[in-house]
């Protein structure tokens, strides 16, 4: 199965869904050739608005279109949406509970060529803190296709975090997705890896590698980071007593923090977090090399699993 870049998958899915949903309008901030919202723009120019390089304006104009009864999808780079346009998103989308869908492209390290100015490694943390904001981080093209209609038909703001790149396919076919529900992709009794986005495929490979050492690692994909699937996390905590989170994001504020919040409140177990360790990354030759260099390799996930199993053993006596 070929790998489709997430932006390609999203651009195609938005076009497909939008052709049957006349209420969808699409906006971009001069990045439609990158986010691939141009597919929709070319097919439906009368429902596409390019606001120029002005992300705050992008959000506010979408707010107006939503107040006027449309379902706007806004497209831009995640770093700019979550930072430059954050006040607009906080005040006019989240606080006013306006039905704007934020398609945040080039997230994580995926703009490896441009480097840290365009990396987006704190966006999940920022968006997760906004009341009423749904945060979705899909793993592959099939999941993106599944999410677009669900997001469009959900009443309320959604932040959809998209990579510029692709990854190995996780879902062989288009899965059923639901806001607030995770996927148990693999069962394992020793440790559960909870992951999202491009790290899902890496986590599955880590689980495979650990099996050779006799470690049974389960893998849970938590694409709905907010609301999060508390019952699935707690089930994993009960069954394996040791959790690893893996995300292409800072270990502060993202999926790892969200999972830790759930278990510390209800069923404390050791948690190890794989992610970016409170530093800026660097420019890299390609995404995989950069991810490996900054603590997101398959072996990093394996190490975290071994460590958390060790901690569990110590804690259990």
């Amino acid at each position, binding site marked *: 199965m070929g790998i489709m870049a997430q932006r390609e998958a999203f651009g195609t899915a938005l076009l497909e869904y939008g052709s049957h949903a006349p209420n969808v309008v699409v906006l971009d901030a001069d990045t439609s050739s990158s986010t691939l919202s141009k597919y929709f723009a070319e097919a439906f120019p009368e429902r596409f608005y390019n606001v120029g390089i002005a992300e705050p304006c992008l959000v506010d*104009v979408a707010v107006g279109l939503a107040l*006027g009864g449309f379902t706007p999808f806004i497209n831009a780079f995640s770093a700019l949406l979550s930072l430059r346009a954050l006040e607009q998103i906080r*005040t006019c989308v989240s606080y006013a509970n306006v039905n704007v869908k934020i398609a945040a492209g080039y997230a994580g390290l995926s703009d490896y060529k441009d480097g840290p100015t365009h990396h987006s490694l704190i966006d999940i943390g920022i968006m997760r803190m906004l009341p009423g904001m749904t945060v979705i981080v899909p793993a592959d093209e099939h999941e993106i296709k599944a999410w677009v209609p669900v997001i469009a038909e959900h009443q309320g703001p959604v932040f959809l975090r998209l990579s510029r790149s692709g990854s190995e396919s996780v879902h062989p076919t288009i899965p059923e997705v639901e806001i607030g529900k995770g996927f148990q992709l693999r069962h394992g009794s020793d440790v559960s890896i909870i992951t999202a986005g491009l790290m899902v495929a890496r986590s599955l490979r880590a689980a495979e590698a650990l099996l050779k050492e006799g470690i049974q690692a389960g893998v849970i994909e938590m694409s709905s980071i907010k609301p999060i699937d508390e019952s699935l996390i707690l089930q994993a905590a009960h069954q394996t007593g040791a959790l690893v989170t893996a995300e292409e994001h800072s270990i502060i504020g993202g999926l790892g923090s969200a999972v830790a919040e759930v278990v510390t409140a209800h069923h404390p177990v050791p948690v190890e977090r794989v992610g970016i360790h409170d530093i800026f990354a660097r420019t890299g030759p390609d995404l995989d090399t950069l991810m490996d260099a900054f603590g997101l390799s398959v072996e990093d996930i394996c190490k975290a699993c071994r460590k958390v199993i060790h901690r569990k053993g110590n804690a259990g006596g």
Partner: protein
Amino acid sequence: MNHTNEKVSRVEISELEKIAYQLRIDSLEMIYRRGAGHPGGSLSAAEIVAVLFFHIMNVNPQNPIWIDRDRFILSKGHASALLYAALARRGYFPIDDLKRWGDLDCHLQGHPDILKTPGVDMTSGILGHGIAISAGLCLAARAKDKPYRVYTLLGDGECQGGIIWEGAMLASKYHLGNLTAILDYNDVQLDGFVHDIMPMEPLAQKWKDFKWNVLEIDGHNVKEIIGALEAVKDVKDQPTMIIAHTVKGKGVSFMENKSTWHGKAPTRQQFEQARQELERMV
């Protein structure tokens, strides 16, 4: 240019002038009772808001979310007291609610809130949002073939922020003739005079350069306000900016043109004096 309209009777103009002063009294009373609020910018925009809500806008207070209503976005959301007074006097909610502004269980927030207060078309308070959000609404109206117009009231200091000009470019790119912005040009902001803090002149030229239709009026002259707001309805392919020259703190002798009255409440004695001055005009 004289933007007056002979069709509006002297009686009606006099009535609107009185409403404006009633809104001033209401606003100041609210700010006094609560011990917080923004008197200067509420007093300067009273005629503009009175004309919009009591003469120009096609709204239905009994059905505040009527889909074809004209929209109003208070971009200078700090003047919430004035908006709340207008909404109450127009019948959106009981006038007595004004006394409970800021109480924990009251729908009237410090700044306007679309989710809590009937008649508030958009949450505001952080400056700068009025133009771009109104532009989005105007695009929606056009795409859905709706007849409504969108009005947004801006402060002058507010135009120091970049998002205003992002929205200004967009509104002219899309030829939004259904968008009318009114700029409450009182030349006073929190820290002093606008012309000292960050000079905006030539302000009319700036908007013209952004390809807006620009009118300049006396923002306390009801006839001129009506004339301008009627005239813009004929402009179909351009957004309009009405630069309304006003006096910050208008109507209260000791508040006029004083930045110190941008955002503080009067004492009881000050409020009583202000009320006496304002009541003479009602």
